[in-house]
């Protein structure tokens, strides 16, 4: 049984220009203790997807899924209140910018305490102890001092640790980390990632790692979903995807990562895809990548379906299997 199983999750926004699809038929499975990555550019719908899973969408959004089970319980059949309860008890989420994700007017301790209390943490003394414990467990040294401080007095890395501590308060089975390191310094990034991986191991907590940076996924996740314009364009085991992308977009993403050391070639230009991610409210006809895709042909006027190919899934009329083979030759 999967910890979380989602089939065909769609999120639409009501706007002045009618419904706009932000996430289109997203499929996702995760097992306890598993680490799965989701990658995509900004605006690809990955954050909306995360918010939809955590039931945090704004009232103007409509989320629907054919199947949505958490620990075998069907969330679609629950009242909104029950669903919220189940989700907050089992899923935690941390966000990109820890400093603005913490309430600036309240102390770290207060925010931790109320989280602990809302998950049945007992009286205030017990809550406090638990909070301090949590702070220690995410590697914050002088927890007692930090407990009394405000978010603005802490560095970004520390704040992200606090966020993680807060996320751990409900002993989640799944932690969704939405770009957890993007706004942090590089050295801090790896510390946070290490922490997340360690927690994943220690607590057998599944981790959904959302990022736009392949370098983060390469070391951590088992499987990666690549998203573009609200759709998953490719899903595969991480190393397979990194070494042998099938989808032109995945390849473009990989090629845009600079290489260092032995991979570095003087004069090699970083690859970049022409154009920008299309706005959600006027997507191109057919394949969303169509206008930007160097391999596009007439057939791409039709929307490609996600199909299985060599044990992974790809959404392209012309997957890059041949080309990859040729290159490898």
């Amino acid at each position: 049984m999967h910890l979380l199983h989602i089939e065909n999750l769609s999120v639409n926004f009501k706007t002045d220009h009618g419904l706009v699809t932000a996430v289109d038929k997203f499929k996702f499975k995760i097992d306890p203790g598993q680490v799965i990555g989701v990658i995509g550019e900004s605006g690809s719908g990955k954050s909306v997807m995360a918010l939809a899973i955590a039931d945090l969408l704004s009232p103007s959004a409509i989320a629907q899924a054919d199947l949505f089970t958490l620990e075998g319980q069907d969330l679609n059949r629950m009242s909104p209140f029950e669903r919220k309860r189940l989700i907050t008890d089992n899923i935690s989420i941390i966000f990109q910018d820890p400093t603005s994700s913490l309430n600036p007017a309240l102390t770290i301790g207060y925010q931790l305490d109320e989280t602990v209390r809302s998950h049945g943490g007992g009286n205030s003394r017990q809550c406090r102890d638990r909070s301090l414990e949590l702070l220690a467990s995410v590697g914050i040294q002088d927890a007692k001092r930090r407990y009394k401080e405000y978010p603005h007095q802490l560095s970004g890395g520390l704040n992200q640790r606090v966020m993680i501590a807060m996320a751990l308060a409900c002993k989640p089975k799944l932690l969704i980390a939405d770009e957890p390191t993007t706004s942090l310094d590089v050295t801090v990034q790896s510390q946070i990632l290490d922490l997340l991986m360690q927690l994943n191991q220690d607590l057998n907590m599944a981790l959904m790692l959302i990022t736009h940076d392949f370098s983060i996924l390469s070391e951590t996740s088992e499987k990666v979903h690549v998203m573009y314009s609200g759709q998953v364009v490719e899903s595969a085991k991480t190393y397979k995807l990194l070494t042998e992308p099938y989808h032109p977009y995945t390849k473009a993403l990989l090629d845009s990562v600079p290489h260092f050391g032995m991979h570095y070639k003087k004069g090699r230009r970083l690859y970049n895809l022409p154009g920008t991610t299309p706005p959600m409210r006027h997507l191109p006809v057919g394949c969303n990548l169509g206008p930007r895709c160097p391999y596009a042909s007439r057939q791409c006027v039709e929307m490609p379906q996600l199909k299985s190919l060599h044990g992974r899934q790809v959404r392209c009329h012309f997957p890059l299997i041949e080309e990859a083979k040729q290159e490898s030759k």
Partner: protein
Amino acid sequence: MSFVSEFRTSITKAIILASIIFIVGCEQSVAPAHKKNSQLLIYCAEGSPITLNPQTSTSGTTIDAASATIYNQLIDYQPGTTELRPSLATEWTIDETGTKYRFKLRQGVEFHSNQYFSPNREFNADDVIFSINRQKQPSHPLHALYGANYPYFKGQGLGTLIRNIKKIDDYQVEIELTRPESPFLSILATPFLPIQSKEYSDFLMQKEQLELFDKNPIGTGPFQYVAYETDSYLRFKRFDQHFAYISPIKNLVYAITPDPAMRFARFSAGECDMMRYPLPVHIKLANQDDSIKSIQTSALNVAYWAFNTEKEPFNNVKVRQALSLAINRKAIIRSVYDNQAIQAEGPLGPSSWAYDNELTSTQYNPEKAKQLLLEAGYSSGFELDIWAMPVQRAYNPNARKMAEMIQQDLLEIGIQSNIVSYQWGTFLRRVRLGHHQTVLLGWNADNGDPNNFLTPLLSCLASQNRSNYARWCDRNFDQLILQARQETSPEKRKDYYIQAQKLFAEAKPWLPIAHTPNNMLIQNEIKGVTLSPLGTLSFEGVHFAQESTDIKKLPDSQKNKQEQL
């Protein structure tokens, strides 16, 4: 952090509490029951008295507040009339020279007491001498208290008129005047000469708290002072030892409400029982409403249009006559006074005993006015200024409007006019200095004597930058009123005054416009209210419908019949 966690609950609680308070607060108050039990009478007053001592102010607010309640004079007016009656003096005699007045004082009169002082002796001659000398002698210890001046005492020239005052025995005093002055008794009966307690003054002087003397006043009147909150209320309680009567009113409150609209709103909502100075529309409303009524008495006042007789062309009697004929006073009385006043023909109204019944009315006649102007040599008309007083008074509720109406009337006889107005203080100062051409003003009597009109308004002395705004000086007229003043026989005085009024009517230094009655609105359950022609307030005889009237301690017949008056 407990602050925050309790924050929410406290806010919710506060909101609930606030709404409960709001609802409960809006419930019908329980006061009326209380009111009946405490025999409370509420009088809606028009302002905050500046002082509670009528000696030191001529303001009607002070007089209303103090003289109807705290103090008594030697002599008094019979309620609702200008007739004199004994008060603290039981009888008096005047010697043949007309300069020596001997008063026999009432025995057994008690003074009030308060938290500072309770009297050890009853009222006697010392108190009378003390009270008059306070105003007369600059050396008197209380004379300069709070930098007070004594506007009425000085204005009437009493400082020089009274030569001295001496004690014959404990219950007899003699006042000696420098010259015979027949209105003297009327002056003594005005509220400006209240009798205060010498013992209280001595007591305070000893305790060096003299400043309390007028602030926590002690008198012999029917009500004693309890509390005064400026702009809010003035509270009295009944003085059970009062010599003349015990009122059924146990508690008396002056609810201070300066704005007439708000005063009437309070009155009609039942928040007060009596209301002074209603607007004409309020009287109209009161007549429609069964639960309230308006009472009225003719008053000793006059509104007039004075011509500055020192200036061209108003020094010409024909011009003055022409102007007088040109004004439609009926229309003025209808619009400005809402028909609540009577047309005036002379300075004295019909409620004065010296009123000349045969005085011919000046009829509205623009044609004749034009004729007269022609005769005077102003056939092409001229321009004039009308100075309109900027404030509202009982005798003239809207001088500006009156001026506008006069303006219209003057146009008909070919005279252009401008309306001039200044801030009240400036206005009076300039008018006194004679800067005006014509002016709309009025006069309210403070004692019942005709002299109170004729001397200040029309005598030669008053034309010298004083209250004779016509600046009219006629030696014959002066001679007549002087004779009347020195004469003690009422019949002869009346003769002199009638002659004087005739002189006035011929010379027309002003056009008398209206005599306005005094008005008061009262709730229906209040009975026995009398209004004085002098405009002073009295609670004597006032009672609630369901209660009995005053308990009289003095027989009504105790009127002093004296030979000379």
